[in-house]
C-alpha cells in the first residue's frame, strides 16, 4: 500500500540536467548491458523521480525492444522524448552513452601502449575462444522466448546458411525477413478473407 500508491505523490520536477545525470549514473554502473539496466531505470524514473507511471514505463520498454538498435539507447531516447520532447531524448541518450564512450576511449588509448606486450597478448589469446561461447549464450535463451517450433526452425537455419556459407550480409537477411513477414501477413489475410 505504501510503496505502490505513487500516483498521489508529486513527481520530482523535470530538468534536462537531472535527466542526464540519472541516465549517466545508470550507464556508468551497469555492466552487462540493456537487460541489467531495466530494473535500475525503473527504480529511478518510476519509483524515485515519479516521472513515469509503471504502465507508461512498460509501454515505452516494449516499443524500445521492438525497434532496431541498442535497447538501452532506444529506451533512454523513448523516455526522454516522452518527458520533454527532442531535447529530453538527447539529454537521456547522452547520459546513457557517455560513460561507455569515456571508459572505452580510456581503455583504447591505454591498450594502444600495450600492443605487442607478451603478457597482454597471452591473456587475450586465452579469452578469445571464450568469446565465441559468450555469443552463443543468448541463442539458447532466445530460442525459448522466440517460440521456435518445427514450423519456424528453418528460419534460423536458412539465415545461418545464407550468412556463413554464401557470405550474404546479415543486413540483407534481416531486410528479407521483414519482407517475408509482410508477405506472410498478406497471405494469411487472404486466407482469412476467403473463408
Amino acid at each position, binding site marked *: 500500500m505504501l510503496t505502490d500508491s505513487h500516483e498521489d505523490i508529486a513527481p520530482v520536477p523535470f530538468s534536462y540536467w537531472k535527466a542526464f545525470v540519472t541516465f549517466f549514473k545508470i550507464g556508468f554502473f551497469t555492466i552487462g548491458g*540493456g537487460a541489467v539496466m531495466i530494473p535500475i531505470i525503473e527504480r529511478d524514473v518510476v519509483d524515485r523521480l515519479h516521472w513515469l507511471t509503471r504502465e507508461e514505463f512498460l509501454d515505452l520498454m516494449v516499443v524500445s525492444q521492438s525497434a532496431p538498435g541498442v535497447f538501452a539507447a532506444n529506451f533512454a531516447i523513448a523516455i526522454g522524448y516522452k518527458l520533454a520532447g527532442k531535447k529530453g531524448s538527447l539529454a537521456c541518450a547522452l547520459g546513457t552513452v557517455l560513460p561507455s564512450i569515456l571508459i572505452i576511449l580510456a581503455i583504447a588509448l591505454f591498450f594502444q601502449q600495450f600492443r605487442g606486450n607478451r603478457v597482454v597478448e597471452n591473456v587475450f589469446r586465452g579469452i*578469445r575462444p571464450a568469446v565465441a561461447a559468450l555469443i552463443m549464450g543468448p541463442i539458447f535463451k532466445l530460442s525459448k522466448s522466440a517460440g521456435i517450433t518445427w514450423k519456424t526452425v528453418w528460419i534460423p537455419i536458412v539465415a545461418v546458411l545464407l550468412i556463413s556459407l554464401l557470405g550474404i550480409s546479415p543486413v540483407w537477411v534481416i531486410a528479407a525477413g521483414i519482407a517475408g513477414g509482410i508477405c506472410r501477413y498478406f497471405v494469411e489475410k487472404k486466407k482469412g478473407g476467403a473463408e
Partner: protein
Amino acid sequence: MIFLQLFLTFFKIGLFGFGGGYAMLSLIQDEVVVKHLWMSSSQFTDIVAISQMTPGPIGINAATYVGYTAVVNSGMSPAWGVAGSLLATGSQLLPSFILMFVISKFLMKYREHPSVKAVFSVLRPLIIGLLASAALLLMNKENFGSPRESLIPFIYSVVTFVFAFFAINKWKMNPIYVLVICGAAGGLFYGFFPT
C-alpha cells in the same frame, strides 16, 4: 574516405540492428571484419570481450571501440581515432532517434496489429540464426589456433571454449567472471608454454 564509410556503415547497423546488442555484433562483424577489412578477426574478438567486461550497453561499447580501431588501423593518429569512435557511435544512434521520433506513436498504436506481429514472428527466429552465424565466424583459426600448426594450444582453446560454454549457459556464472578466469588462465598457460 574512412569517415564517410564509418558513418554509412554504422547508420546501416543502427537501422537494421534488430534483437539487441549481441545480434548487432554479427552485423558489426560482417561489415567491419569481412567487408571493409578494417581489423582482424582476433582484434574484433578482443573488442567484444572488452565491451562485455566494461560498463554500458555492449552495442555502444563495441561501436565506440570499433570506430577508434578502424581509424587508427588505417594509419591515422589516436586523436583521429577518438573522432572515429564518436562518429561510429553517433551514426549508430541516429536511426534510433529518427525512429523513436517518427514511429514510436505508430508502433505503440499498432504493435498488436497482425502485420506488425507477422513481421516479428519472422524476425525473432531469424535473429537466432544471426547470433549463431556470428559465433561460427568467431570459431576460426585466428581465435582457436590450428591443430596442424601446433596441437597443444589448439586443444587448450577448445577446452577453454567448452568450459566457458558450460560456465555461462549451464552453471549460469556471470560472463564477466568467466572472461576474467579465461584471461588469467590464458596468461598462465601461454606464459609456461610459449609458442
